[in-house]
């Protein structure tokens, strides 16, 4: 097994990829730890350009000093890099309010499978010059190229956030309450369903909804009041931490259904299987290894062959 590639510069990475391409050898796993600078942060423009090896936590710390953030909240933020988030399309509970990473990316620079450095997009918040090539690298699992730099649109950090929970052993009851919240006048930034609360009886399951509001203090207070007294305030997102402890996002099974069919899907899960669902989005993470059975479309296969002709990068999965 080959060692890990730790390029000290983009040029060094280009050389490593070009060498693998020339010899038609699989590229060893790449550690971008040395490429982790904030290249440009312009609070007045609410944009940031970073080297892709920076961790989400390190980036958010820098942005927080100016009262801003990149509105994503992946698990393991202290060890997850921006490259990870982009290539594996990693998301967290607040995707309900803010969307996933592809909604925030303005441009990327990537070394593709034949060693070329390609830039697309730009550093301004609106830009339609040229094709939106950045999109093909989002969720590509590093099969087309390696992102080395990315520019994002930022948001103001919400002044206030409050999170509430509501539990029941009945999925029927959960379905009714969830529909009430999602079709009511409030605008939650997160709406999760999980089964990590341990009930008293050994074989019973407790289902918990977790809903959060963020923004202006008056808005948050109004929405909290609207939820009603059957909901309890939460200090931390414990369920999220519990689920992801010992689990990696990219290798954990994720299922996506129409939001209206979420509860029906949850009913089909094996009893006792740990899960956390982004209930507002219809996305369910379950404690199972990720399996994919799909065959890439002819278009996808052509795209892969175009940018990684010698198959030196991971396969399209």
């Amino acid at each position, binding site marked *: 097994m080959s060692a890990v590639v730790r390029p000290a510069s983009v040029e060094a990475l280009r050389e490593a990829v070009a060498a693998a391409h020339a010899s038609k050898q699989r590229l060893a796993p790449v550690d971008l730890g040395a490429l982790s600078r904030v290249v440009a942060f*312009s*609070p*007045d*423009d*609410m944009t940031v350009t970073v080297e892709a090896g920076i961790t989400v936590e390190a980036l958010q710390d820098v942005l927080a000093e100016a*009262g*801003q953030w990149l509105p994503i909240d992946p698990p393991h933020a202290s060890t997850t890099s921006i490259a990870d988030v982009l290539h594996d*399309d990693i998301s967290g509970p607040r995707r309900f309010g803010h*969307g996933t990473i*592809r909604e925030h990316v303005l441009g990327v620079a990537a070394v593709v499978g034949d060693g*070329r*450095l*390609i*830039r*697309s997009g*730009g*550093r*301004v*918040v*609106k*830009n*339609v*010059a*040229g*094709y*939106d*090539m950045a*999109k*093909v690298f*989002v*969720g*590509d699992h590093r099969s087309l190229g390696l992102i080395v730099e990315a520019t994002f649109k930022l*948001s*103001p*950090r919400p*002044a206030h956030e409050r999170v509430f929970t509501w539990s029941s052993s009945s999925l029927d009851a959960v379905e009714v309450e969830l529909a009430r919240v999602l*079709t009511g*006048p409030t*605008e939650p930034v997160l709406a999760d369903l999980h089964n990590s609360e341990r009930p008293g009886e050994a074989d019973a399951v407790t289902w918990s909804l977790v809903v959060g509001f963020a*923004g*202006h203090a*008056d*808005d948050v*207070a*109004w*929405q909290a009041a609207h939820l009603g007294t059957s909901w309890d305030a939460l200090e931390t997102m414990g369920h999220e931490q519990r689920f992801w402890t010992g689990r990696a996002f990219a290798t954990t099974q994720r299922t*996506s259904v*129409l*939001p*209206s069919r979420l509860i029906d899907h949850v009913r089909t899960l094996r009893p006792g299987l740990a899960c956390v669902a982004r209930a507002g*989005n*219809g996305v369910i993470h379950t404690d199972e290894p990720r399996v994919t059975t*799909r065959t890439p*479309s002819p*278009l*996808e296969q*052509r*795209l892969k062959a*175009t*940018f990684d002709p010698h198959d030196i990068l991971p396969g399209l999965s």
Partner: protein
Amino acid sequence: MTTTTPQTPTVPTAELLAGLRRVVGEAHVLSAPEALQVYECDAYTLQRRLPHVVVLPGNTDEVSAVVRACAEHGVPIIPRGAGTSLSGGVLPVDGGVMIALTRMNRVVSVDARNRRAVVEAGCVNAWISRAAAPYDLLYAPDPSSQTACTIGGNVATNSGGPHTLKYGVTTNHVLGFEFVQADGEVTWLGVTPEGGEDVEGYDLRGAAIGSEGMFGVVTRVLVRLVRRPQAWKTYLAVFESVADASQAVSDIIRAGIVPAALEMMDREIVHAVEAAYHFGFPLDAGAVLIVELDGLAPGLDSQGADVVARCERHRAREVRVARTDQERLALWKCRKQAFGAVGRLSPAFLTQDGVVPRSKLPDIMAFIIECTQTYGLRIANVFHAGDGNIHPIVLYDERDPDQVRRAVHAGEAILARCLALGGSVSGEHGIGVEKIDFMAQQFSTDDLDAMQQLRRVFDPGARCNPHKIFPGSKRCGDFQPRKRASA
């Protein structure tokens, strides 16, 4: 790699024409010169060229059959929506078969629970929000041409609009679409109407949005709907100068306020709009800002007070608030029809589209004022200030060739300055044929080669809407604007 393979201009044969007539019916194939006239250009009128034939299919099967027939004959295809594009994106440079999607204009279904709608490609943007209104939902991207432009065209150009400051552009709201590839094959890219929002595999949807019709023909679109805001607060702030208004924009953004829209109109535009719509704009103002806040009602008052204070800090002479929904809509009507009102100022005008980092707005506005002197032309400005997306409108008389040249040069100088300030030569109108020369300034050869390669993944023969975007593309013979009556 960068140069497009030269195409032999292929005139549709009688056999192909007969085939097209069989597919869509006699009435839906236009080939008489007077019928083709409408299709000689889009809203970029400096270059014109007739397509050989225009086909108006009625459904996806017909589109597929038309595209397949053109593929068999090696004829270029040019997908077209309403033709409101401002950069020559649908100009039939080499002629060819234009596929107009305007008959396919239905809202197919609205799924209120999942906040989605399926619409045909030729559906007019504003009709989506109209169909969603009974469910208190709307389609967020709202180009100024929204009562005419189609969703298929919006997908092609990744259109924006005033409310994209808060809500994002087309790519943030188009979940997936049905798509006829250049060989006639029908496929669906992105989220399917019955599918979940996370799609495995490459984001070909995202790659194709904004590809200016060069990847294939969009036939059906799944859009995201957003909730109609509970409340609005819409302000009209009056400033002595564009510079003061620009500073107010920066201040509002820096404060962490995300208005739904933040739009500027300068003195020229205010005069044109006031003459057309009699809204009551102050004619002696240097600039006016429209600031719209939306969302939940409880927090809007204090945010609104903050906006007013920041405008006043930058010497706003007056800040009015729309008191009724009618007042708010009247204000937006003025803003969105501002381009139309420009016809009152000048017989012809060139609408530019460029982007700078928001903090560079005062710099680019100062440069535009300088350009009015350098080129001896009036330039009116109405634009998305919150996004740094400028729309200088260069006024000229198209009967005077020297003015035409100066207008084009002024536009180019402004775009070059946008690039120098770290911006882009297009925020929402696209490159089309108009801005081809700027691509090599904004991107490297490797970047452009990669884009060409991406295009050939979708369309190996480069037959779909050819001669757009890329340097080295074939041009229309002469750059010869024709005389035309006042707009």
